[in-house]
């Protein structure tokens, strides 16, 4: 539980030695309480203070890092059950499986298809995160070669799944890349002994939550530290319920002995893998292993992940610029709105519904809606005049007429004065745009004398 500044202060040496960089112990305590400083900045702190404060500062759901460098994947490290309470921080990771039993050509083709699972949308690259190499050959040397080929071919962190003998064979060449080890059932403790000396992350698999509690304790006793829990559900409904219970145990019950990121293997014949993945993205799955490499499956799943892991306090923005709707000509109408994604998509779809080709100018307003941006001074006569002169819209159309959202009709005079464009006040609500555009006389967009 979080401690108050005063409770923290009581644990500090109270000498105001300033070694932490703050002027007094109380000031330091307040920084710790705000999460902006840590007890490790206080060399004279007692062991008791370190232990108490270290535990209080640790996230309720620990963080496990897989892989290294730019494509490293962070699992866990979440603080809430519902995204509206704060946000979800670390998006569900997707690992696509590949079998070491495939022949060389099929293996290469599979890796190529996995690499191609990357999509651009809303200014972000959505891509699968890991390759799950499954030992199905029963041959440790073959598995080791396949794992290396997967790493070199895909450039993604690996999940290594198989008997400990095969995992051990792959580690000399891959251990420094921080793969996630997933030993076969019944080999949990041997796997933990394999992961421990290299400090590698480990999937602990056991039936159900009681089973996991025992297996996690055993893995820790064998020295493994970065643990990911797989409750091995038999069905979709079981997977969702276990995932929810595990998250609640971490967040609500602060059950540290069982609080781990989760992994679900939705391949190998798991029923309804697409449905399971779609439910486990919002319902707390940290890592999902899929056998499908079909972009028609992965694009929607990655988009769902993008939606759910959007920070509700920071709305998605669309890029500012000129957006043609339909096939506009130089005499088509020009409308303007702000770059809050929901505003943009609403206005855009209403323009589409009108079936009148048009251009939509999108102003950079830090992702605020029209009224909010106006109130914050981001959508003003000056800023709109600047867009009219700087965006290139004047070169794209032969007229000089702009349709302004009805909510900000009061900006008309200022824009006309600064830009020389004529302003038409559009409807108050986006939903009235279709009727509005259809009723506009074509003469409204006659060529200007410029």
């Amino acid at each position, binding site marked *: 539980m979080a401690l108050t500044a005063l409770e923290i202060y009581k644990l500090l040496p109270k000498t105001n030695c300033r070694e932490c960089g703050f002027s007094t112990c109380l000031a330091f305590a307040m920084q710790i309480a705000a999460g902006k400083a840590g007890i490790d900045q206080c060399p004279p702190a007692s062991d008791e203070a370190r232990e108490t404060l270290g535990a209080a500062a640790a996230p309720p759901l620990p963080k496990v890092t897989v892989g290294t460098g730019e494509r490293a994947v962070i699992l866990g490290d979440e603080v809430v059950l*519902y*995204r*509206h309470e704060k946000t979800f921080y670390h998006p569900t990771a997707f690992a696509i499986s590949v079998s070491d039993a495939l022949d060389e050509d099929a293996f290469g083709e599979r890796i190529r298809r996995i690499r*191609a699972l990357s*999509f651009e*949308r*809303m200014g972000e690259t959505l891509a699968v995160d890991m390759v799950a190499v499954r030992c199905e050959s029963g041959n440790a040397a073959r598995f080791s070669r396949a794992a290396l080929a997967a790493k070199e071919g895909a450039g993604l962190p690996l999940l290594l799944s198989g008997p400990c003998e095969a995992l051990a064979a792959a580690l000399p060449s891959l251990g420094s890349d921080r793969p996630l080890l997933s030993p076969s059932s019944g080999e949990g403790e041997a796997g933990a002994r394999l992961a421990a000396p290299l400090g590698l992350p480990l999937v602990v698999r056991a039936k159900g*939550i*009681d089973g996991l*509690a*025992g297996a996690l*304790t055993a893995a820790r006793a064998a020295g493994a530290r970065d643990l990911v829990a797989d409750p091995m559900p038999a069905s*979709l*409904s079981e997977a*969702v*319920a276990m995932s*929810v*219970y595990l998250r*609640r*145990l971490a967040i*609500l*019950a602060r*059950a540290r002995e*069982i609080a781990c990121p989760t992994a679900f293997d939705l391949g190998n014949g798991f029923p*309804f893998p*697409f*449905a399971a993945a*779609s*439910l486990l*993205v*919002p*319902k707390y799955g940290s890592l999902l292993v899929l056998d499908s490499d*079909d*972009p*028609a*499956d*992965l*694009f*929607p*799943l990655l*988009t*769902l992940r*993008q*939606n*759910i892991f*959007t920070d*509700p306090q920071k709305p998605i923005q669309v890029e500012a610029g000129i957006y043609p709707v339909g096939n506009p000509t130089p005499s088509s109408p020009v409308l303007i709105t702000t770059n809050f*994604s*929901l505003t943009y*998509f609403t206005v855009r*779809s209403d323009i589409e*519904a009108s*079936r009148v080709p048009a251009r939509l100018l999108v102003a950079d307003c830090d992702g605020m809606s029209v009224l909010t941006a106006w109130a914050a001074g981001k959508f003003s006569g000056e800023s709109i005049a600047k867009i009219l002169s700087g965006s290139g819209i004047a070169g794209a159309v032969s007229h000089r007429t702009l349709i302004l959202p009805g909510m900000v009709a009061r900006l008309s005079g200022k824009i006309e004065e600064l830009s020389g464009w004529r302003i038409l006040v559009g409807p108050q609500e986006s939903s009235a745009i*279709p009727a509005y555009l259809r009723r506009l006389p074509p003469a409204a967009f006659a060529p200007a004398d410029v």
Partner: protein
Amino acid sequence: MTVILPKQTFPGRIVEVTLPAGEGGRSVSVGGQTSLPLMPEGELPNPVAVGIEVRTGDEELPPSLARALGGRGTDPPGLARSLVEKCGARFLFLSLAGCHPDLGGHTVSRGAGIVRDVLRAVPCPAIVGGCGEEETDALLFPAVAEAAPRPVFLSYADEKNYRLVAGAALAYGHGVVSWSPIDINMAKQANLLLGDIGIPPHRVLIDPLTGGLGYGLEYTYSIIERIRLAGLSGDAALARPILCHLGESWKAREAVDSTEASWGDVVDRGRRWEEATAWACLAAGADLLVCRHPDNVRTLRRIAGTPWL
């Protein structure tokens, strides 16, 4: 080792709402639960109800829907009967889009006639949707309410038209879908207003506006979660079943564009786009799902439309 499962219990209960069927059909009950979706920890008397949409009017279908619906004919009663039977939809969402001036411009009396014919052809429960054009819908809802040969739900009543829709529903014994634009306060207000007019709680479904995958679904997701948590926690005006119409998912370019080869087959992708939207709504707390793709009705029904646990 035994871990005590952190089950969550709530003081409230979602109102149970029954959508009546015609002769020979099976009515659909939703709601009545005391716990969060998909969790085995409270009373869950009714499974999620999955329905299919049939819309009138001329509209170009996305490739995935064109493939699934092709060859089923265009007369609404025949299409409705064949679709409901083949995919096993529990209810029908009949959308009178054809009354929109841009999508066919059917007269109000033709729209009402279609409702009468479809309801005679299909015995399952029905929700009838307007065309989305304010002035037309103002005439359409009273006409539909009168023409419907049995009780249906009218979709939808919003801040502006609730008197008219609720009046029509009251006069002929129909239910009302209470719509609000992804806003929990407006959802509550809308239900309170319907209550003031005299619509009983067991004849109201909440439509929170379902954004499509990639285009606002995250807002819908969180609003549904908040509405459901509020309802279970004792806010009576929000303790109603939630209806998610997945139609918006078909407006995404990603669901209909066949020019991007790296996105995979558009027929599969379109269906998946709607399906992923549906699962997210279900995870948040939806009680009724309206699909456009018959295969999604089948899949959702098979997995979620039977007792879940």
